[in-house]
């Protein structure tokens, strides 16, 4: 019997490898390693969304169970493990905290206007992009980084952030735009 709780279970594998192993082999040790990394981050994310301590831990469990059940659909060329887990957590908290649906495109819809060209980075691990992105995040001016965190973590559209922070709407928009431009450049750098 392996020690499922040991972080060493995933020490030499990337989180993308671990997710793939969960999807392919229902690998419990890989899942436990993913839990060890993501659960405390998910908890922090959900606390910032307004969950209390107990509520956050319950939702963390729900999100990780969804990770287990959906891992089969994970594609490491499309998204890093962090991005994939983020989208699951985002949708789960909209469902659980707001009791709303999140309308999304259906990739199989015949009405969908297809991408003009195959994306250039097909086959390249999204993990590399994620690495450059993480580095670029650290170089953002604090006033841009702070607004970006508010936009992603506080369940408030930018118009409301403007009112609550007392920052003019135009300034909020231009800071978010500047931040996004810099991050986009980092992500597209190697294409």
């Amino acid at each position, binding site marked *: 019997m392996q020690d499922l709780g040991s972080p060493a279970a995933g020490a030499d594998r990337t989180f993308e490898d671990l997710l793939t192993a969960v999807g392919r082999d*229902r690998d*419990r040790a890989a899942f436990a390693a993913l839990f060890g990394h993501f659960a405390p981050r998910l908890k922090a994310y959900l606390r910032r969304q307004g969950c209390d301590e107990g509520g956050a831990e319950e939702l963390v469990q729900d999100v990780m169970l969804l990770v287990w059940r*959906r891992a089969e659909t994970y594609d490491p060329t499309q*998204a890093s493990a962090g991005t994939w887990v983020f989208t699951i957590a*985002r949708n789960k908290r909209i469902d659980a905290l707001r009791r709303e649906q999140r309308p999304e495109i259906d990739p199989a819809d015949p009405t969908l*206007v297809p*991408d003009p060209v195959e994306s250039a980075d097909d086959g390249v691990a999204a993990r590399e992009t994620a690495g450059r992105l993480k580095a670029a995040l650290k170089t953002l001016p604090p006033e841009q980084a702070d607004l970006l965190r508010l936009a992603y973590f506080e369940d408030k559209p930018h*118009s409301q952030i403007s*009112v609550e922070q007392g920052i003019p709407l135009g300034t909020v928009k231009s800071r978010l735009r500047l931040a996004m431009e810099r991050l986009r450049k980092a*992500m597209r750098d190697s294409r």
Partner: protein
Amino acid sequence: MTVPTHHPGDTLLIDYAGGALGEAASLIVATHLALCPCCRLNVAEMEAVGGALLESIEPEEVDPACLETVLARLDDLPPLPRAPRPKLVCQPAEVPLLPEPLRRYVGNDLSRLPWKRLMRGMDCYDIPLASGSESRGKARLMRLASGVGPPHHTHRGIELTLVLDGGFTDDPGQFARGDLSVADDSVRHRPVADEEGCLCLAVTDAPLRFTGALGLILNPFVTF
């Protein structure tokens, strides 16, 4: 196939990618995404930003019992069935006019909807939202006959209009299928439907959820 020329813009797409938009505004943004590969790429990158922010958040300790509870529940859960793959061979003879996710909300047979007449040449259908509450925005299908436009108006709050068929002309230019117009209180505008008429999805998102007085949004498209 033409691609849209009027887009939601970075800040609205960030709100969508981060999950801060209400259901009505998410519906119109996602329906634009179905028609706009360029904004789809932007949203995928914005989700990657969400992933990087999640990675860089200060972690909070989780009760060790949580992992045990989750591990104990794994066996009760079958993997979710895979989403059906896109059909590669047999394209349906007729591609539906309305893209997902809008089609899920209103169906594809517009003649069956209980349209409501607002004025001559202008009909509407209020789309029921899962949330049931309109505190975070309303969504409405609008059908305008050639040359028709709502009376002159300004906005409180934000109004989004997505063209689904035909088109309209407004100060910022011509809007055709897939084009999304973003209007706020800084815009005085008077859209007029083009010759072929116009079918569009109109949404107001209540940007100030916490103030009761502003819940009354002066929007002729949605609260006529």
